[in-house]
């Protein structure tokens, strides 16, 4: 199933199976096709394994819906740029430390490296990390991996052309200002991109 994106794959699978498959099974079917995410960029700072892990995580955070998944918009390489060249060396080190913690916790919980998990297990583990982050007091000076990646994923997604114009709405030259209007009259009513 080379060159078929996940959404297309899901549709096809549903068609083949008569649309009766439960989601986890679908994930299992897909897993057979693409056991690990493919990278559409060559990481220079992250290792291949780290890049694959981050690619998976960003797609759990912002998966494909009627708009593309984060990885399809180059979010993983955006994150690599932020971590490797925008962040201070101190913040970079902290982030890489949280990545190791994330991996270690995955090993503790599942007995496997994150990248070796089934697709469904990866999603479950990322979600469990997210739930735990939301349930605990956040130490903003030592943000957990899931929160840093979530922040960078949203920021990276929303500054892409697709993110700005499809997930959000984007008018570069509004031409006029309407201060207080019904939301449905403010373009298509979605959040403004800028």
């Amino acid at each position, binding site marked *: 199933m080379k060159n078929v994106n996940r959404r297309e794959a899901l549709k096809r699978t549903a068609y083949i199976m008569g649309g009766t498959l439960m989601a986890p099974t679908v994930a299992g079917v897909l897993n057979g096709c693409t056991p690990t995410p493919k990278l559409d960029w060559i990481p220079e700072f992250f290792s291949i394994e780290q890049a694959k892990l981050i690619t998976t995580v960003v797609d759990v955070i912002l998966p494909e819906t009627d708009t593309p998944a984060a990885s399809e918009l180059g979010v993983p390489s955006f994150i690599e740029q932020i971590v490797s060249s925008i962040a201070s060396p101190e913040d970079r080190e902290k982030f890489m430390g949280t990545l190791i913690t994330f991996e270690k916790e995955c090993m503790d919980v599942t007995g496997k490296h994150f990248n070796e998990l089934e697709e469904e297990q990866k999603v479950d583990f990322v979600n469990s990390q997210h739930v735990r982050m939301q349930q605990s007091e956040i130490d903003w000076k030592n943000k957990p991996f899931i929160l840093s990646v979530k922040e960078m994923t949203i920021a990276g997604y929303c500054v892409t052309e697709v993110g700005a114009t499809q997930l959000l709405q984007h008018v570069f030259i509004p031409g006029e*200002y309407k201060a207080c209007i019904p939301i449905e009259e403010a373009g298509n009513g979605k*959040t403004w991109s800028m």
Partner: protein
Amino acid sequence: MNLNIKAKEQNTYDAIVVGTGISGGWAAKELTEKGLKTLVLERGRNVEHITDYPTMNKQPWELPNGDRLSFEELKDYEKQRRTGYTVKESTKHWWVKDIEHPYSENKRFDWIRGYHVGGRSIMWGRQSYRLSEIDFEANAKDGVAVDWPIRYADLAPWYDYVEGFIGVNGQKEGLKQLPDGNFLPPMEMNCVEKDFKSKLESKFSDRMMTIGRSANLTANHNGRSRCNYRNLCVRGCPFGAYFSSQSSTLPAAVATGNMTLRPNSIVTEVIFDTETQKASGVRVQDAETGEMTEFFAKIVFLNASALGSTWILMNSTEHFSDGMGNASGALGRNLMDHHFRIGASATVEGFEDKYYYGRRPNGIYIPRFRNIDSKHPDFIRGYGYQGGGSREDWRRNVAEMSIGADLKDEISIPGDWRFGITGFGEMLPYDENRVTLNREKLDKHGLPTFTFDCELKENEKNMRKDMQQQAVEMLETAGYKNVTPFEQSYGPGLGIHEMGTARMGRDPKTSVLNKWNQVHEVKNVFVTDGAAMTSAGCQNPSLTYMALTARAADFAVNELKQGNL
């Protein structure tokens, strides 16, 4: 000998203007329109209107890394970056590199600046307020520093004049502490801003809120087109819809045929003629080649920015060991700024079905209400608030948002309405808040640098407490939720309203400039930028520099005609 005479003739003008920013552009326009052959010197590179705004049409996705600069590159802007908003991929070409233009800090001072034609008129915040009689009387009434040598009536017609030319939008309110101007139609407040205004004014009899007064055109004006509500002013405007030297004053000066603009020309000193006891011109170091050239004129306007003009006077030591115009010892002293970055924000409920269209390059303004009709026990003078309301976008609290497809839905729906205000407070003039010339540490041109010694004192610190308390109280009284006070790191200068250091005054023994902005001791040298300020008020100051410049230029030309200069 003949060659020298010829060279001198070629380098001789009626007037020299040093600087092309907000006040320099005005000096250039006024002097050339009054018929003076004027040389306009700019230390930085040339910037042509529109063609030299490289990022003005860049989409968010065309700017690398979400418009962020790399950690390595930011090291060049160690001080310029202290604002947190100035140095980005889309704006980095407007700010000096601190590694090339260093300065020293006995105490933290944030000197945020750009060296190019147009100066900070390109990047300024465009808020345009008049000082009032209360401000001009303040020093005399409080027994602070020295008295302003002018009153509001001296400047009022010049405020009218400059507003009429540049175009300032605003709402007339009839306030004695914030005089009305010659306004273009006001911008509109959004739903929560209107809500806050009505609640504030019904619950606090001494306070009101108005829409910001900004130098953005709300209607076509003087051949320039109106605002298109992109709110990307800082990159340079393709419509020329906000005031900058490029969009407004320099084209007027060019149109006269009387202006010669010379970029890359660092004025190192004003030349003093001991026979006439006047300035004969300026000495210029070419920023690219280092070559020195002298230019001559009957009058010299220093508009190099508050600290730039003071630097030139301090460095003019050929006949003045402590700097030109410094017999009083006041040169470099009474450095001021507006202290800010303290206030509060809150969530506003009840307008979930409302939104806005377009990006208004302007906010709301709550004019000063302290020490006007009553006296505050803890401080003199006052502060105003700037701020606004908006709906949260994708930058809102990431930790609390959901994950997966639900997160996408959440992001695509406008978030809570938030309303926030930040105080801008008056800083008193203090003799000991000063800059001195440092001849040990040199910049990339081999020229002396500044050492700063400036701090907030008790009056400002007490005022800041009130700025925060009142912000919280007003938002809570309005019934808003999650009222959150904030105070962010502030160092003097961060307001980018640095001013003073060559103050106007009545007495040559205690001031540098007289009531016409003439250097007391060298009458054909005028300083009409922020250096001239005798006190700071709490209003954004650029409009006052424009009015002072137009007034002084008118005076200078009349004096020239009468043979007095």
